[in-house]
């Protein structure tokens, strides 16, 4: 039993290794030194406090975005709408911070902003959920459409109600900020903030809901087999909507992390942040488990921070994209790994 589970977890690990090897080959072909590149990335991300801190800054929304996608997947739903939910959550948190009296203590302010993001992102997830439950509209289309609606609507709201020079909202008051002098000093001036605690709590919450509560049992049952769930007396439609709400809420909190931690304001966005799409990859890399999502996010963030180092070596940063894509491919095609392993076993071990 245990060994079986272990080998299941080996698949992403091997995929990551294969992806890095493939990336190395591309670098070699293009005339770069992969050892130096990976060495620099490692050195930067793990040994240089500033970049470690910045990596964490990237990790935070990524974990939450990955959780959002993974949660939906567990409930049998495909949420491509994280981008939109994230924008709405971002705006909801920043708007709340700006509208509440700045003098409120942090213990009220920050939870209030995060709750606003949960509600905002949740509603943005709720709508496709409702449309699917009520009208059987395919969630892939609605979530794509909702992304664009979120992009334009949040921009318009910022322009109309929260505009500050520089095409953004004003800064949130310090009482709503997740940043701290302690982390700033610890990481030599990076933007690392307490959102990492929020993200980790998010991971625990997802694990707890799905695996420890009867509601989670229901959500998973509906995800795997709606017919049997209906037979067993579960309200399939309500669960579908709830799953989408929770998924959207995670995405919304991811947005809040940008607003309360990374930037302290919201910009008028010309395009999507990309965090939602990365979240899909992270969720799949992490086999839709909380812990896996955390590991996947670390890998992604490390590679993204590493881009800065690669640029300094003159390696086009798009190579990182390619490596990430290859890793995803290898994870997806995990059968290739099993297949190879079985081949090797057959050759090596002979008949049982």
């Amino acid at each position, binding site marked *: 039993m245990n060994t079986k589970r272990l080998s299941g977890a080996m698949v992403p690990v091997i995929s990551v290794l294969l992806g890095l090897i493939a990336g190395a080959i591309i670098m070699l072909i293009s005339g770069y030194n992969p050892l130096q590149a990976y060495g620099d990335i490692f050195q930067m991300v793990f040994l240089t406090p500033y970049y470690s801190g910045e990596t964490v800054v990237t990790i935070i929304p990524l974990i939450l975005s990955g959780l959002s996608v993974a949660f939906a997947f567990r409930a049998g739903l495909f949420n491509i709408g994280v981008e939109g939910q994230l924008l709405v959550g971002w705006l909801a948190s920043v708007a709340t911070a700006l509208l509440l009296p700045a003098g409120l203590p942090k213990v009220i302010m920050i939870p209030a902003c995060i709750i606003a993001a949960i509600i905002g992102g949740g509603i943005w997830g709720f709508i496709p959920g409702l449309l699917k439950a009520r009208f059987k509209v395919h969630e892939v289309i609605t979530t794509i459409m909702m992304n664009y609606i979120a992009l334009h609507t949040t921009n318009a709201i910022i322009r109309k109600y929260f505009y500050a020079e520089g095409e953004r909202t004003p800064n949130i008051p310090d009482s709503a900020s997740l940043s701290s002098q302690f982390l700033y000093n610890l990481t030599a001036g990076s933007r690392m903030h307490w959102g990492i605690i929020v993200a980790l709590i998010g991971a625990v919450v997802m694990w707890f809901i799905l695996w420890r509560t009867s509601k989670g049992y229901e959500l998973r049952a509906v995800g795997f087999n709606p017919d049997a769930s209906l037979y067993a007396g579960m309200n399939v439609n309500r669960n579908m909507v709830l799953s989408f709400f929770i998924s959207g809420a995670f995405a919304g909190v991811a947005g809040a992390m940008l607003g309360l931690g990374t930037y302290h304001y919201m910009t008028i966005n010309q395009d999507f942040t990309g965090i939602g799409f990365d979240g899909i990859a992270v969720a799949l890399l992490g086999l839709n488990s909380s812990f896996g999502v955390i590991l996947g996010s670390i890998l992604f963030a490390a590679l993204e921070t590493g881009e800065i180092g690669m640029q300094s070596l003159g390696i086009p940063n798009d190579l990182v994209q390619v490596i990430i894509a290859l890793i995803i491919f290898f994870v*997806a095609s995990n059968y290739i790994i099993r297949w190879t392993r079985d081949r090797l076993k057959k050759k090596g071990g002979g008949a049982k």
Partner: protein
Amino acid sequence: MTIMEILEIVIPSAILSATPLILTALGGVFSERSGVVNIGLEGLMIIGAFIGAVFTILFEHIGLGAASPWLALLVAAIIGAAFSLLHAVASITFRADQVVSGVAINFLALGITVFLVKKLFAGSGQTPYIDHRINKIDVPLLHDIPIIGPLFFSNIAYTSYIAIILAFVVWYVLFKTSFGLRLRSVGEHPAAADTLGINVSRMRYLGVALSGALGGLGGAVYVVTIATNFGATTISGEGYLALAAMIFGKWNPLGAMGAALFFGFAQSLSIIGESIPFLKSIPDVYLLIAPYVLTILALAGFVGRADAPKASGVPYIKGQR
């Protein structure tokens, strides 16, 4: 403006912007009808757009003149098909989760093309402009027909007709030929097809390759009729819209075409809206989101449930029960 004047602006423009979506959505139909989900349409369009730009420039360079964009379309279809084989290998041979593999295609396409653009054009993030585009024309004779002439035969690119004709061709192929029957059979019930001696993997490879060809074509058409060069942001979301059009159109080529035209129409309507006096007072955000809201309303209101091909997304493993 009179209604006719508005339509004369809106309809040709809707058809033009719908064209890449139609082509790509048709590709999606092929792939999903064969049982392979293709989230990677965006990536296939990116590849096509890249090839469309690079090869038009190359062909112009070697003196092929006005034929350049047309030949580039051909190359884009071929390379698109070749690139999509990655998705095919992963999801058919190696039983990958097809959604994941599609997402990987999207990442990979963007990474590789931008990387190559930089390699090819001295560090530049985008290609130069192409000189020879596929232009919008007035179809001789036909554009003089009253009413429909100005709407459907003026200010239109031949690629749009090609896309529309292709939609009918794909429909014909899928529903009237033995190839189509076989392709659909492996998407509905691969085991049944297998027992009748149909090579499930081969049909699925073909389905995916055709989606690559059409997706590549879609991306290239976008470049040679609209964008005129290629950069990282040239294709941003069009592939996802094509995916939506395919689902909206219920996996039917003609439905997909209708949905893509609907998207195009909604967008051009929202653009012309700003010039129509009584719509002018509406804040522009409403017009910006109108196409997406309309789509959702249309789906919820009268399109309703659509059933995907039954075996779509499920790897076929011989002999598994």
